[in-house]
């Protein structure tokens, strides 16, 4: 994959992340019946070591929902929740955050947010993008991010599209990471004519 992107390409990818996370935020808001704030996404291309550390302190324990992506865009979507935020989110959905039920709720939230995000991207770009069934983990952040990137075949570098979603008036937020595989990012830029 190209390890350097032009400013124009990064701006275009940031705009894609903006549209995707805006749609995902609307879906989360509808699910919870509460307003959701969305940060300006950060987009970066970096080597794998930097990518793992850019997401956060590798030793931090977090909860995560992984949605592998197939079709015209290959890669992964990864939702990262601080454990206490995950518990609050589950509470808002009326389920116990711990145990199997909490993990299912977080998997379902991942399902809904990814479907919204990817549908918005697919419509805009004319691509068929297919989210796979979600998986959850409660583990070390560094282990999660490294395993996802290496598992989707990255060896040299990674492209990160990172957006934060925060439920208004609650201390409850999550990070939505889109990690296009090396060939996936080339396809995205091609569709944008860049």
């Amino acid at each position: 994959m190209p390890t350097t992107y032009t400013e124009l390409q990064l701006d275009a990818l940031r705009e894609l992340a903006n549209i995707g996370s805006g749609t995902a935020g609307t879906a989360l808001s509808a699910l919870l019946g509460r307003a959701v704030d969305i940060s300006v996404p950060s987009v970066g291309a970096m080597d794998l070591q930097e990518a793992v550390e850019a997401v956060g302190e590798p030793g931090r324990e977090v909860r995560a929902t992984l949605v592998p992506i197939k079709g015209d865009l290959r890669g992964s979507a990864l939702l990262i929740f601080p454990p206490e935020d995950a518990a609050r989110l589950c509470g808002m959905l009326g389920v116990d955050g711990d145990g199997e039920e909490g993990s299912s709720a977080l998997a379902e939230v991942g399902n809904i947010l990814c479907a919204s995000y990817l549908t918005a991207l697919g419509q805009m770009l004319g691509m068929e993008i297919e989210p796979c069934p979600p998986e959850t983990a409660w583990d070390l952040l560094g282990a999660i991010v490294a395993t996802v990137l290496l598992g989707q075949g990255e060896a040299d570098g990674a492209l990160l599209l990172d957006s934060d979603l925060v439920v208004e008036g609650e201390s409850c937020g999550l990070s939505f990471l889109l990690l296009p595989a090396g060939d996936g990012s080339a396809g995205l830029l091609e569709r944008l004519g860049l």
Partner: protein
Amino acid sequence: MSTRADTIVRMGDWAVSADPDDCLVTIGLGSCIGLVLVDRIRRVAGLAHVMLPQARPGQAETLAPAARARFGDLAVETLLDAVLEAGGRRIGLEAALVGGAHMFAFGSGQLDVGARNEAAVREGLAHARLPVKAAATGGSRGRTVRVHVGEGRVLVRAAQGADEVIMRGFE
């Protein structure tokens, strides 16, 4: 508690120390393997953070020494040379393996990266005739490894778990 200096070994890196107060640390091993080589008599230890089983064909020649621990097929030789250079003796060396977890089911059409990493490193160790004295590998949880150079002690902590001594060293 001693005032140990932690040397963090980041993904794809390796480090060697002959300072008894040093602690070599890798945080958040998922499918990656932490390869530990220890000479407890000479008090020399090394830690490599292996990312993938094999380098691409022709890639090995282009890699800087600092980057050779990324790949299982190159990591053993690279770390072994560095440990010997730091004063370790081949005859006294013992290996420990940490990581190689299977955290997600995706991409499991082929054998998962974690298991392939472990197999590649074990093959390298067998080829170098270095005994594996301890292993905390596989499963679905990420791990952190700490190597206390002076005692030759190796500690592992899995996510949501407690410290576990996998190689005891001198007390």
